[in-house]
């Protein structure tokens, strides 16, 4: 099984690697460009993928991945399902703070509310943080890029006295007990 393992490779100096996994490839391209253009002191490499498992040919050249971001578009059921399937190919050690979920189009009226609830339940069961992003406007993309960069800095060790596990225990998604009775009228 080609699991993606966090600690199987040595880290590089002053670099951080982030992997964006999205079934449709629209948002990850824009997000990747924005992240690279942000001002920072760290070299950030952004890798893109449609789903896990990653192709074995690149296994040797691939550096250590510090943060895996699953981008789920709420308007398509396929996006959610492919993210669910990809989760199986991730080593459990990643879920201790090195995985983050990013949801787009949550404000869209055509989205059935059950999908968001099921996404929240999935993320809460994995104890990971859940971010919401606006992908249509540049401001939204910028905000999402900033937030991801902040989390990336923590998980790659560039923030002293903080690790990914520490941060995720503070920011992890929780599901309120009355979530099944929520309606947003």
């Amino acid at each position, binding site marked *: 099984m080609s699991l993606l393992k966090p*600690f199987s490779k040595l*880290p590089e*100096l*002053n670099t951080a690697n982030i992997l964006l996994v999205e079934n449709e490839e629209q948002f990850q391209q824009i997000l990747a460009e924005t992240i690279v253009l942000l001002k*920072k*002191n760290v070299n950030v490499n952004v890798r893109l993928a449609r789903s896990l498992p990653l192709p074995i040919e690149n296994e040797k050249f691939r550096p250590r991945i510090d943060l895996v971001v699953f981008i789920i578009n709420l308007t398509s059921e396929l996006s959610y399902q492919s993210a669910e399937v990809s989760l199986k190919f991730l080593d459990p050690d990643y879920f201790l703070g090195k995985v983050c979920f990013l949801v787009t189009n949550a404000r869209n009226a055509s989205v059935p509310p059950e999908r968001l609830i099921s996404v929240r339940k999935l993320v809460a069961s994995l104890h990971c943080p859940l971010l919401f992003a606006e992908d249509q406007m540049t401001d939204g993309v910028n905000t999402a890029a900033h937030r991801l960069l902040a989390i990336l800095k923590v998980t790659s*060790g560039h923030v*002293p006295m903080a*690790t*990914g596990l520490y941060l995720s225990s503070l920011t992890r998604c929780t599901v309120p007990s009355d979530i099944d009775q929520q309606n947003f009228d």
Partner: protein
Amino acid sequence: MDRLEDLASSLETLAFHGFQTPTVGNGEKESPAIEILRIKEQMSNQCFEMTVKLQSGESKRSCSASDAEKDLPDYVNTLEEAKITHFNKTLALHRMQVWHVISEKLKQRDPEAEAMRKLTNHSLDLCLKIKTLQQESFELQDQITALQKQRLDLKRLTHEKMKEMEELKTKGEHPVAEEYRNVLQKAQSYLEKYQKMVAIEQNVLRGIIIASKVNWREDPKLREIAMTLEDITISDD
């Protein structure tokens, strides 16, 4: 030589900061010393993560997910408590450091130290004043509460007295009126009895005069008596 001096001064500033990198804004140019320190911190952070992973791998016990879920809140609580104590201790440490610096400064003879001394003396005076004023306000407060207690007592007493007065008013007619009525009834019964007796005696007298066939019109005394007899009627049958 200049370069060495620069390096020495930058290392000195770093030592003051406790060998933690000062947070530089993103994208700004860093001096190499700070950059080296930052990379060193990154490496130590990553090594820490890896040692944590190794340690967690050593003590593996097989348990179900529900057991783990049950234990999780306890561990989270201990973590939170550790974080809080650490934060409090850091705060206390900073306080001590600041106090130390201030006391050191006060002992010197700078114009700044003079200003600080004046400030501390002024604040001491103000604190004394505050203390005396607080004492006075406490005493006044005590007096106020004593007066309020007295007023409350008086109110209660007046209330009771008013109640008593009202009770007496409603009941006070009664016992006197009762006796009066009793006496009146008694007197009336006596009166009736004597009236009956008088009527009976007068009837008897009338009968005697008529039966004796005396001409009472000629004798003035008899005439008087007979006249008065006619007026009197029996009051009740």
